[in-house]
């Protein structure tokens, strides 16, 4: 009896992992890849279909130029060459929710190829070579009904929703990734995370991993340390969070190491990832001889993006997210640690937007990482789903700068904003939060403080001006915090003649 898995450290003393990552990205085009159907997520089943995406007899595909543009964008952002001429191919295989029983994809003529990108893990930069990025269409989606697990086994019947059939996909395939074994899983995670940021910046996908618009297949194999002979690989399908990518790669390393070290053979197969238990299980066996009978799609003319068009697209590419971060950190004067907090808190974009509205980087960071991040955390929401945006943050900060609010009051305004109590002005009004700027009200409060604290006054008069702080505290308390401390100090000093 052998262990199911080895400890990761034990595994890595004996074997070097080799990875290949295939990421499928659903594009955010308004219509499908080969027809005019809408692509909205979550629409009632089979309401976004037509003869083309249903694969009805006689229907023909037509290429969505937007989809090609997005593919070129992605290719360029990954430093790929863009094909001058490429074709779609048919990938023939049976799949219950694939309408034509072939997938229109690209085979030996992808639109983008030979690229590279970089990821940073623990301060080290790793270069990832990109084999290709090609265009294809998504399949429909099956729901298996009547069983306990929702899987096909045990189900009494299956329902098929073709809304997703024909949604454009880009598949980004890396070349073999060989990094030190103890970094492999982290590099895999960092790569997928970097891709997500890049795709967001390119505005080509919603990259919602929870909705399946970004899915990762991780190929892992092991070779004995020091050997150059590649081992048998497995392909873990449809891993859909950054953390899961890391865990799935680690799991496959430890599982394959256990198999190999006990004299067994790794089976070439696809494997399913189980989020709850953190393990992979065997799917279908997949041999190299699997025959998709690819041939050029005769229903579509070749795609030949002109060099002018490619250059136009290149000119519109946004700054690469990794470079942009370095630039922003420098401009804002944040420390590495501060910047990491910003990024880990997913607060980069709101902070950029807030600063663009005239707020200082420090103030923007203070609100987003303080009040707002805390509230998002507590309610388990994304920052951008809070209902408070850069405009409101800038509005509140403006009130602080004008002296209408201090930080403490501003926090209460945010509280009101998060609770949906209205605009900052309405909240200030409703909650009675504005600073009291009426001198006579302040002077009255000062008089009350002086009268109530004769001993403090005496200390001040006897040459200890620092003791006046206690009087300021008393005034602020009297004003329920709604006074400008500097103003109080100034008026008090005048009163006491210091």
């Amino acid at each position: 009896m052998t262990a199911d898995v080895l400890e990761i450290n034990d595994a890595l003393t004996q074997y070097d992992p080799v990875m290949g990552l295939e990421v499928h990205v659903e594009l955010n085009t308004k219509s499908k890849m080969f027809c005019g159907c809408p692509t909205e997520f979550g629409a009632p089943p089979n309401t976004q279909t037509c003869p083309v995406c249903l694969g009805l007899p006689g229907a023909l595909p037509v290429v969505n130029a937007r989809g090609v543009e997005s593919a070129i964008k992605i290719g360029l952002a990954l430093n790929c060459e863009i094909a001058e001429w490429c074709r779609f191919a048919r990938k023939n295989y049976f799949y219950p929710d694939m309408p034509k029983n072939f997938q229109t994809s690209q085979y030996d003529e992808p639109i983008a190829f030979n690229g590279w990108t970089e990821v940073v893990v623990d301060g080290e930069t790793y270069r990832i070579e990109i084999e290709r990025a090609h265009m294809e269409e998504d399949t429909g989606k099956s729901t298996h009904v009547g069983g306990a697990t929702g899987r096909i086994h045990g189900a009494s019947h299956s329902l098929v929703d073709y809304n997703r059939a024909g949604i454009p996909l880009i598949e980004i395939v890396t070349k073999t990734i060989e990094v030190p074994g103890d970094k492999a899983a982290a590099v895999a995670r960092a790569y997928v995370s970097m891709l997500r940021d890049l795709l967001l910046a390119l505005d080509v996908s919603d990259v919602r991993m929870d909705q399946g618009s970004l899915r990762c297949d991780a190929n892992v194999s092991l070779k004995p340390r020091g050997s150059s002979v590649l081992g048998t690989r497995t392909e873990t399908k449809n891993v859909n969070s950054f953390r899961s990518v890391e865990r799935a790669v680690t799991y496959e390393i430890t599982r394959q190491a256990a198999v190999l070290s006990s004299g067994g053979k790794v089976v070439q197969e696809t494997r399913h990832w189980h989020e709850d238990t953190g393990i992979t299980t065997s799917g279908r066996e997949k041999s190299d001889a699997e025959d998709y009978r690819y041939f050029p799609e005769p229903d579509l003319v070749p795609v030949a993006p002109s060099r002018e068009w490619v250059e136009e697209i290149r000119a519109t590419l946004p700054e690469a997210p990794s470079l942009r971060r370095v630039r922003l950190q420098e401009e804002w004067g944040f420390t590495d640690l501060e910047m990491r907090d910003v990024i880990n808190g997913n607060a980069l974009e709101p902070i950029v937007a807030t600063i663009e509205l005239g707020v200082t980087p420090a103030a923007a960071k203070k609100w987003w990482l303080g009040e707002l991040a805390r509230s998002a955390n507590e309610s388990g929401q994304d920052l951008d789903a809070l209902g408070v945006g850069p405009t409101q943050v800038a509005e509140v900060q403006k009130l602080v700068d004008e002296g209408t609010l201090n930080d403490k009051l501003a926090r209460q305004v945010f509280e009101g904003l998060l609770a949906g109590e209205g605009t900052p002005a309405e909240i200030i009004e409703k909650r009675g939060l504005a600073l009291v700027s009426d001198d006579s009200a302040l002077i009255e409060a000062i008089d009350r403080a002086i009268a109530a604290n004769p001993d403090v006054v005496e200390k001040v008069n006897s040459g200890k001006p620092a003791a006046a702080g206690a009087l300021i505290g008393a005034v602020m308390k009297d004003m329920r915090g709604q006074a400008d401390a500097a103003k109080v100090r100034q008026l008090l000093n005048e009163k006491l003649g210091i």
Partner: protein
Amino acid sequence: MSDLTRKTAAELAELMTSGQASSVEITQAHLDRIAAVDGAVHAFLHVDTEGALAQAKAVDDKRTAGEQLAPLAGVPLALKDVLTQEGVPTTAGSKILEGWKPPYDSTVVQRLKAAGIVILGKTNMDEFAMGSSTENSAYGTTHNPWDLARIPGGSGGGSSAAISAYEAPLAIGTDTGGSIRQPGAFTGTVGVKPTYGGTSRYGLIALASSLDTPGPCARTTLDAALLHEAIAGYDPMDSTSINQPVPAVVEAARNGDVAGLRIGVVKELGGEGYQPGVEARFHEAVELLTKLGAEVVEVSCPHFEYALPAYYLILPSEASSNLARFDAMRYGLRVGDDGTNSAEKVTSLTREAGFGAEVKRRIILGTHALSSGYYDAYYGQAQKVRTLIARDFAKAYEQVDVLVSPATPTTAFAIGDRIDDPIAMYKNDLCTIPSNLAGNAAASFPCGLADEDGMPVGFHVMAPVMRDDLCYTVGAALESALAEQWGGVLMTKAPELEVTR
């Protein structure tokens, strides 16, 4: 008014314009003719009596209201059962699609409707257009109106038989390797394969996507041209559609002046294996064209001898993929769905029952030809041959304007004669296949009757891409010259069918 069925489409249009006949009368006359003779001919799989009369009435109403109508408005037509028509059964001659009513119109049907052309019903064909005799239809054989014991040609036997039996003045066919031209030749009618991409494939149930071309069938060159013009032209729904103006086919059919036209007789398409009566009529036609002022030379297309094997690799390869969608899940036949069988089993039981022998043969052939390890030897090689054939054409067109040959090596053969010999059957498409591989325009025109059997012979004209008009020029010249000998078009020589009612 039974003589309405003897009129050409152009004559019928004239009668309607001048108010001498209504579309409803004309349509009813053809429906009556179908009722009388189709029991013997079996050209139709489905007759849409109600739909046709409703379309006819709509056209009549528009004409009465003084609306400007398209040239063929109100003329009836028979539609090959491989093009989708919304709500009307469409089977492609296969059991697997029995009872399927498409939820959409093919582009050809949209254009027919827009032109006010009345669709009488769907015509018989070889299953999924695989065949040269219409004996492979799952719904029974169509008979050649010239001789009911003979086949009408295929795969569009139903369409050509419908017009030669005077059940319709016009029909639509589809030509993948000769399926319009070969039945045209066998029934003494005009059959045109437009330039690939000149007519839309949207809604045409695919046999081989890179070859399929819808086109007109008619009894005269002018009728074919009028129909051609009604259905041709760029379609954004078909990526392979050519975005250029439709060639001036009607004008060419009206003029038919071949003086100075350079005509190339393809050396490789003739001689051994060709029926003497076919060769004799062909050469007479060539002489006739020479007399009309055409320059005739012999031209060699050395790679045509590889066209047949290349075609019979490319076609099944594409077909095997195109037919993969018939999985019993969403439309058509479903066998074995009684709760005891898996989805996979239901698919295989349905295909076993729903596909005929020829379809299965070609799926297996195509699957093998595309499989890894064989792709280069078969499919890849066939594509290279295709390129060589296109070059043969290009070279030939440097010397001549059009190429000519017999449309078929023989006249229509007897039903059952070749059904067990697929290779003999395939050879019938020898002359027509090169044009499909190259995407050229091509057409078959009647040029007489073979001495041996008295059956019609077809004269085949091939023209460069988007020069479909040149085919019509030659066809019209030949037609008018021969009409002097025959006292009309060849069809007038066809024997009367016995009316069964």
